[in-house]
C-alpha cells in the first residue's frame, strides 16, 4: 500500500506561524481521531465520544475546529512552538515545513524493531514574510485567513475521498494503529517532524536526528 502524501503551502507573517500550523494540524487530526475504544468480550467494542471546540486565532481572521482534548492540543503546541523557534533562529529566508505523518506499527521479530509504515503524510510548507506597516499586517490577517479557509476545504476534500484507512484492530493490536495514550480521544498513530530550509535550499533537518533516536530507542 502506498502512502498518500498531501502538501499544503502557506505564506504567513512571523507571528502567525503558530496559529496557522495549529489550524492545519488540528483540522487534520479532527478527521483522524476517534473516541476511545472500549473492547468488550467477543471482539466487540464501543467508541467514546469526541467533543469539538472552536478556536479563534489572535493574529489571523480565522476560526478552526479542534477536538476537545487538552493533551492533544498541548502536544501540538509544543512541537509547533519548537518549529516556530527554529524558524526564527535560522535567520535566512524563513522557509520551513512541518510534516504530520500517520503510520501503522508492524511487529517484527526480535531483534528487529517494529516497523513504522506511514499511510498518510501531510506536509505544510511555510514561508515567513516580514511586513513593514500596520496596514500591510491588517491585510495579511485577512489574506491568511482566506488562505487557511482554502486549506481547510482542501483537507476536507482529501478526507472525503475515503481512501485507505487502517482497518479497525483487535484489542491486542490497537496500539499498532491508534495512539491510545490520550485520556479522552484516540487519534491514529502519528508523528510530527519539521525541517528548516536555509537560504541555499539545502535542508537542515532535525528529523534525521529524531528518526535515528527513535530507532535506537526501540
Amino acid at each position: 500500500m502506498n502512502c498518500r502524501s498531501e502538501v499544503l503551502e502557506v505564506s504567513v507573517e512571523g507571528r502567525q506561524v503558530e496559529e496557522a500550523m495549529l489550524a492545519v494540524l488540528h483540522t487534520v487530526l479532527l478527521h483522524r481521531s476517534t473516541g476511545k475504544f472500549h473492547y468488550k468480550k467477543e471482539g466487540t467494542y464501543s467508541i467514546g465520544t469526541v467533543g469539538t471546540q472552536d478556536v479563534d486565532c489572535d493574529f489571523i481572521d480565522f476560526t478552526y475546529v479542534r477536538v476537545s482534548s487538552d493533551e492533544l492540543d498541548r502536544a501540538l503546541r509544543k512541537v509547533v512552538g519548537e518549529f516556530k523557534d527554529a524558524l526564527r533562529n535560522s535567520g535566512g529566508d524563513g522557509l520551513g515545513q512541518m510534516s504530520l505523518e500517520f503510520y501503522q506499527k508492524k511487529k517484527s521479530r526480535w531483534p528487529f524493531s517494529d516497523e513504522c509504515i506511514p499511510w498518510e503524510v501531510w506536509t505544510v510548507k511555510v514561508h515567513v514574510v516580514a511586513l513593514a506597516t500596520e496596514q500591510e499586517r491588517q491585510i495579511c490577517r485577512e489574506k491568511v485567513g482566506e488562505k487557511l479557509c482554502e486549506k481547510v476545504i482542501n483537507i476536507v476534500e482529501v478526507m472525503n475521498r475515503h481512501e485507505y484507512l487502517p482497518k479497525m484492530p483487535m484489542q491486542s493490536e490497537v496500539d499498532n494503529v491508534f495512539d491510545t495514550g490520550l485520556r479522552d480521544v484516540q487519534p491514529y498513530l502519528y508523528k510530527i517532524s519539521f525541517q528548516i530550509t536555509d537560504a541555499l535550499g539545502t535542508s537542515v533537518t532535525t528529523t534525521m536526528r529524531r528518526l535515528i533516536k527513535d530507532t535506537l530507542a526501540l
Partner: protein
Amino acid sequence: METDINSQDRKDLDKFIKFFALKTVQVIVQARLGEKICTRSSSSPTGSDWFNLAIKDIPEVTHEAKKALAGQLPAIGRSMCVEISLKTSEGDSMELEIWCLEMNEKCDKEIKISYTVYNRLSLLLKSLLAITRVTPAYRLSRKQGHEYVILYRIYFGEVQLNGLGEGFQTVRVGTVGTPMGTITLSCAYRINLAFMSTRQFERTPPIMGIIIDHFVDRPYPSSSPMHPCNYRTTGEDTGVTYPSVEDSQEVCTTSFSTSPPSQCVFTVTKAHFQTPTPVVTDTLRVPMAGLAFSHQLSSSRLSYQPAALGVGSADLAYPVVFAAGLNTTHPHQLMVPGKEGGVPLAPNQPAHGAQADQERLATYTPSDGAHCAATPSSEDTETVSNSSEGRASPHDVLETIFARKVGAFVNKPINQVTLTSLDIPFAMFAPKNLELEDADPMGSLHSDGSSGGSSGNTHDDFVMIDFKPAFSKDDILPMDLGTFYREFQNPPQLSSLSIDIGAQSMAEDLDSLPEKLAVHEKNVREFDAFVETLQ
C-alpha cells in the same frame, strides 16, 4: 430501486440517515449562532451521542428539522436544505448560504452499513464542523448583533439557489456511498454581498430590540447576542410546546465488532452486531429519558440573552443611531409564537420591557460535559430589563439634543434631562446643562459646527472661535471630539494623589498586604501554570 440490502440493514440505514440529517442541521445552525461552540469529549460512550460526536441538540432546531422532513428522508429529488440568511435592522434580508443534503442514484452495494457507513457519516459530520467555519457567512454570523441577525430556514424538496445572487460558489463537504444511493452534503454560498439595489422599507419595526444601554456592564461580555431563528413567512403556530425528545430518540449504535485478523477487512458478522443492540436499547432508554427531560425543562426558545454588546469599535456608533430610530413597538410582534416553544425572530427582545422577565433562555443544561458557549443566565435578563425600563423615550431626548446644537459656547439654559442618566454611549460627554456665564459673550459665534453645545469650562483662559478639532466629524452625536477635548482639558486631581486620602488608603493597603500575600502563596501553582502558558 433494487438492492440486495436486507431489511435490518435497511432499517439501520434509514435510522442513520435520519439522525445524520438532524445532526447536520444542528451543526449548521449552531455554527451560525454567533458564538464559539465547545463540547466535551467523553471516553465512555453514553449511547446517545450519535456518530460518536458530541453535538448538542437544540430542541427547537430538532423540532423544525423534523417538521420540515415530515417523516421523510432525503432521497433522489428530495433534498433537505438549510437556508442561512441575513436580515438587517432595517428589514432588508439576503440569503447567504444554502446547505444541501442530497441523495443521488449512485449506489455502493458492497458497503457495510453498520460499520463503514456509520463511520463515514461521522467523518462527514466532522468535515461539516470544519467547513461551517470557513464559509463567509461564519464571520458575518460572529459579528451579528445590532445591525443584523442571521436566520435559518429548513425546507425539504427541491433546492432553490436563486436567492444567492450571481456567481455563487459551492463547496462540497463530502459524500458517503450507501446501497440506497450516495449521500452528498454541500454548500452553495453567496459571494456578492452588496445589498439589494431596491431597498424595500418594510412597515414592520426592526426585528430586534434596540439596546441603547450599550455599555452597561454585563456578566458575559464576550458573546454576541443574535442567534438564528426560524424564518417564517406564513403560518406561525402559537404556543407550541416541543414534544419531549424521548419519544423519537433512538439509540445510536456505539458498538462495533472487530474481525479476526485472518478475515477480510470490515466484515461484521450480524451475530456480533445484533447481540449488543437489544441490550443497548433496553438499558439506555432510561438515561436518555433523563436527558430528554432536561432538554424539555431548559428550552423554550432559541434565544439567548444579549450579552455585552459592542464587540467591535464599529458598534460604537450604531446604538445611538438605532436609538434615534427607536420605536416603542414591541419587538416581540415579529416573534413567531411568542415565548413558549416558539422560535423567535427577534432574539434580542429581552432587552425590552416586561417580556424580558418571561424569558426562559435556551440553555442546554449539559447532562454531562459542559457546553462552553457563553449562555447568559437569567439574571442577565433582569439587568437588561431593568435598565431598559429606565429609559422612557430616548428618542425624544435625543431630539432635544439635536435641537440644541447651536454653538460651542452658547449659554442656553437647558431643560433637558441630564444625559448622564441615559445609557447612550458617551452620555457623559453630551452637552450638559450649561450654567456657566462666562461663555456667553461668544454667543452664537458659529452656527452648527462640529462642536455642539459644550459644557462650558470654567478654566477657559481664552476662547477659541471655531474649534474644529482635527478628524472630528459632525456625526449624529452632538458630543464629539471637540466637546471631549474641552471636557477633559482640566481633569480633576486624582484622589489617590491627594495627601490625606492617599495616606489613608496607603495604610489600609499595607494592612491588607499580609492577607493578600497569603492568598497568593496558596495559588502559586496556578500562577506558575499561567506563566507556563505565556511562554
